[in-house]
Structures are given as C-alpha cells and as structure tokens.
C-alpha cells in the first residue's frame, strides 16, 4: 500500500470523525430543548422532564456522544420519536430510492459532462464550443427544483409520458420504479453535468497544451488519437477530483428533488424529521450522508492511484 493511500485513509477517518462531532455539536449547542420541541411549548413541565430522562438528556454531553458513536459503530442507530422504530428500519426502504437515484444522476452527469466537455474542447472556439458553453452556462444557472418542475410540466402534464411524482416501489416491477426515477435523475444530473462539462472542457484544453501532447503529435499520431490516448486520461485526473467534490452537492440535491417528485427517500425523510423535530433521526441521517460523501471521496482517491502511476511510486 502506498503512502498516498495511507494518508488518504487517515484523512478519511478524520473527516468522518469530524462530521460526527460537528453534527452532534450543532444539535447540542444550538438553542432549543429537543424534549420541549417534541412535546410543544404548552406541554406540562413534568412530561417534558420525563421525556428528557427517557432521552438521556440529563447525562453529560460527552457521555451521550460516545454512546451515540459506539452505537453507530455497532450498527445500532437511534430510535425515532415519531415513528418509534429504529432509524435503520426507516432507512431500509428509503435507501432503495435514494441510492439508485444518486447513482443514476451521477452516471448521467458524468456521461453528459465527458461527452459535452470533450466535444466542446475538440471544437475549441468554433461554433460547437460556443454553443455547448452557452447551454452549460444556462444549465448551471437553473435551480434543480425548477428544472424538475419544468420536466413535470413538459413530460407529465403536457405529454403525459411520466407521472408527476410518487414511487411505485421496486416490488411492483423494476421498470415502473426505474421509470419513476428518470425525471428526478435528469433534474439532478443537469446542473452537476453542466458544471462538470465546463470543467472537463477546460481540463482537456489545458492538457492539450502539455509538452507530451506535442510529443505525441510529433510521433505522427492524429489529433483524434492524441486526444484519446494522451489527453483524456491526464485530463481526467482533475475532473475526477471535482466529481468527488460534486457528490456532496448531488446528495444534497436529492433532498430537494425527492421532495419535488414526492419520492419517499432519505432526503424526504430528513425533511420530514426536521418538521417533526425528530432530532435523533436528523442526527443519524446527516452523519450517514456525510459518511457517503466521505466514502465516495475516498474511492475517488483510490481511483486516482489507479490513473496516476506517480502516486503508487512511494511504497512503504
């Protein structure tokens, strides 16, 4: 294993740890007594006190933090106040929506970004380039939930190809469930794809100015062959980094988009838990999402090491 990966792994653990602290503190320090919030301001003091005891709010914060963490490490999630079931149970069905949605959006945005970015770069300063850049500028400016509404207007209200929202569940066949995720993933992917496409284009243009690209051309490789064999892989290195960072935005986007399409996923659960002041659920879910982001970025780093032999160099 290389030094690079060891370093990245340590960063990975540290980030995860930081995320739990931040989440815990945010919910701890900020004003607002969870018990009072749950029961409402009019609740009798005795009931509030009883709930506080039940929730363990009388114990020191440090103790509760370690309880929470050790629980999470053993796969024990908290118990929702509103649903009175474990967060894990709540998650089971919902992850089945959010993960496929995020993956579809990710794949879509990457395909979009690479093809558009590559096309624009190969047409540099020509009409195709200008068009793609203009359209992607527009794509960046459109809020994803508005795009979602426009997609609903066009494909559900007007053309009636898709339903305007809701999720039939995977048990009723893969196609209907998949179909229900198509519009949401397009809405989610467009903005990310537009950002990535611009980035891909400039990474490719930058790589095309490298000396080794000139060397490849001097060998007699055609422009196209040079692009595929020498430019693309090098240009992918910065693009992949941005992809990893974008994943956080993509997950955040699922919260919004699931809401537009009334998909009962993790994002919607978070939002509902907030409106119901279900702090336990919010806390666990936030850490879960943060963990997903961190894990994806760790895999991006692994991918790095695969792409770039320089990172494998210093074996330990």
């Amino acid at each position, binding site marked *: 294993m290389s030094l690079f990966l060891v370093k990245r792994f340590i960063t990975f653990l540290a980030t995860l740890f930081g995320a739990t602290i931040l989440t815990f503190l945010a919910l701890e320090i900020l004003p607002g007594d969870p018990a009072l919030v749950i029961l409402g301001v009019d609740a009798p003091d005795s009931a509030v006190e009883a709930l506080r005891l039940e929730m363990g709010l009388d114990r020191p914060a440090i103790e509760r933090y370690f309880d929470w963490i050790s629980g999470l490490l053993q796969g024990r999630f908290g118990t929702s106040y509103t649903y009175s079931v474990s967060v894990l149970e709540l998650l089971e069905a919902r992850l089945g929506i959010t993960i496929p949605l995020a993956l579809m959006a990710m794949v879509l945005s990457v395909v979009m970004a690479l093809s558009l970015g590559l096309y624009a770069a190969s047409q540099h300063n020509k009409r195709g380039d200008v068009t793609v850049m203009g359209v992607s500028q527009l794509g960046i400016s459109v809020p994803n939930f508005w795009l979602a509404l426009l997609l609903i207007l066009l494909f559900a209200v007007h053309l009636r190809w898709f339903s305007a929202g809701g999720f039939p569940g995977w048990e009723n066949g893969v196609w209907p469930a998949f179909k229900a995720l198509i519009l949401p993933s397009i809405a989610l992917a467009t903005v990310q794809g537009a950002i990535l496409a611009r980035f891909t284009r400039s990474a490719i243009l930058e790589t095309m100015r490298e*000396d080794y690209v000139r060397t*490849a051309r*001097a060998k007699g490789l055609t422009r196209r062959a040079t692009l595929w064999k020498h430019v693309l892989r090098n240009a992918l290195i910065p693009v992949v980094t941005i992809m990893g960072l974008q994943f956080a935005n993509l997950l955040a986007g699922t919260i919004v988009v699931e809401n537009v399409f009334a998909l009962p996923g993790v994002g919607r659960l978070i939002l509902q838990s907030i409106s119901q002041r279900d702090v336990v659920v919010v806390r666990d879910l936030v850490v879960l999402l943060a963990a997903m982001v961190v894990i994806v970025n760790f895999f991006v780093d692994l991918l790095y090491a695969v792409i770039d032999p*320089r990172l494998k160099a210093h074996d330990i």
Partner: protein
Amino acid sequence: MTLLSVENLSVTLNTMGGPARAVRDMTFTLERGETLGLVGESGCGKSMTALALMGLLPETARASGAVRLEGENLLEYSEAAMCRVRGNRIAMVFQEPMTSLNPLHTVGHQIGEALSLHRKLGRGEAQKEALRLLEVVGIPDAGKRLGNYPHQLSGGQRQRVMIAMALSCGPDLLIADEPTTALDVTIQKQILDLIRNLVNDLGMAMILISHDLGVIAQSVDRVHVMYGGGTVESGPTAAIFEHLSHPYTQGLFAAMPKLGQRAKRKDGAKRQRLNTIPGVVPELADLPAGCTFAERCGLVTDECRAAPPPLTSVAPPAGNASSGNASAGIAPARIVEDHFAACVHLDEARARLNSA
C-alpha cells in the same frame, strides 16, 4: 535529390497586437547526412521554424513559402499525409525532457507507439524494438526501464528516451530543439555526443537548435544565425567561427562565457560580468522596417533602417580561405561562397572585430 529544401519559409502569428511574423523568409537546403544548426537568442523564431517543418504550428500561426521534403511541399500536405511524415520521416526531440513524456504511460509504451503506428508492429514486436532502441541510446538495464514510468527516470535518461522515440522509425531528418538546455552540464555533453554519434552512424540529416554557440560549434556542419525571425548570417560552421561577420553574431560570440572567466574573484566576490548584447529583442509585432537588429547595433546608420539588408556573400580576407573541415559532399570552394550575412556594413563590422 536534395532531402530538405526550405524556401522563403515565413510564419505569421495572429497575436493580440495584430499579425506578427515570427519567422521571415528562411531559406536553406539540407542533404542526407548533413547537419544544420539554428542559433539565436530566445524568441528569435528557432522553435517556430522547427514546428513549421513538422506541421505542428500553434492554431494561431500560418506558414507560407515552401518546405520540400524530397521535392514535395509539406506545407501543401493534408493533415493525414502530414501524420505519416511526422515521427516517420521527420522526427523531433524537444527541449524539456521533464514534461515531454506522458506521465501516465510506460517508457516502453511511448517508444512503441510510433513503431506500431508507422511500421505496423504488433505489441510484442514493438516492445522488442523499443528495448533495442533503449540499448542504442545507452540506457543501462534497458529491460527494466521498459516498464518504468517517466517519473522514475532522471532528466538525462528521459532525454535518451526521447531520442530513442525519435529514432524509432529511422527518420531521414531529426530536429533537435535545444535537446540539452534543460540538463546539467555533465549530462549535456553526454547527450550531445550521443546525438552526434547516432546521426553519424545512421546517416540522418539533423537540424540542431540552440542558443549556445559552443554547442553549435561542436555539432553541426552549417549554421544559420537567426535574429528577429530571419537569418542574419549563414554558412559552414568553421567559416562562421573564423570570420564572425554580422554584428549580431559578433555580439553573441562575445556574450558566450569563456572557460576561466567564470571563476569567482576571491576578494570582491563579484564575478566578472559577461558581455551581453545591449538592449532587448524587439517585439515581433513592431519589428523595424529595415535591419531588425538596428535598435541594438553599434554600427547602425540610416541606410540600415531604410530597407532589410539582403543576405550577401561574405568575402573572406585574403590568405585565409582554408576554412577546412569540409563535410561530406561539400567542396571547399563552395564553403567560401556559402558564407552569407545580412548587413550593409559588413566591412566596418569585420574591421571592428579585428581591432578589438
């Protein structure tokens, strides 16, 4: 048939300040086995000339004139036809060995690429040939190096790899653009010797580009001294070094660090100042109408500024005609006629040099 004949090659760049001629009316010929040096300060258009020959000019550049390889004008070639020339009949070695190799591909792969492209070798054959080439350019432990990535090699080794790559398809012409500038002095000499020997052994023609007169003096048969995109003096190497004619060439020569001058004085810690040519290289976009060197020349008169001075034959001082060192195929008589300079005050320049 003449291998390479360059006729009035000019390169015009579209810059922010308007069109600029980076190369102006370069004319020379090169036979098989002959070597030519291009020398001049940074920005005088040496690399642009080389890239024009390769058909690899930047998008903003246009070339005019003719580059004839065995009679065929490469400037009129289609991009596809040019791809068959590059790396096959004309190969190039670049200045920066550190950045000229793709960091993500192995050395073997990068050498094999041209072989499978032009010679249609399979993977295994290409690797076998790459191994042989690595041995030819003197890389120790070549078998192991084949699978190495560029970052695992030193600068000198990388430049050897670049040379192996350039030689891979047995080109007729090798263009080496400052192949040793980025290397440290001891390695410079090794690489230069390697290039010289290979060119000799393989009978290639070579264009060697350098800003270092010393490098040029040791390595090539003929020299073009360039300034402001054009030739200011050209001729057989020996003739030029014996009769420095153009004021710019004289300046370049005076600016060359001589052995012994480098030594620090113990007391003052101040190094003896190198002679440098006063002034700076003019902006391409607003080169003067007459002699491009006028702004920096001590002998300048109105006549110089009126019109570009043509390249005229430099008559050698009497009794000094034995310029010797005739390379294969060039008669001594031609060498003398072959020495040209573009200056209207050649006699004064020569006189000044002799009195100095």
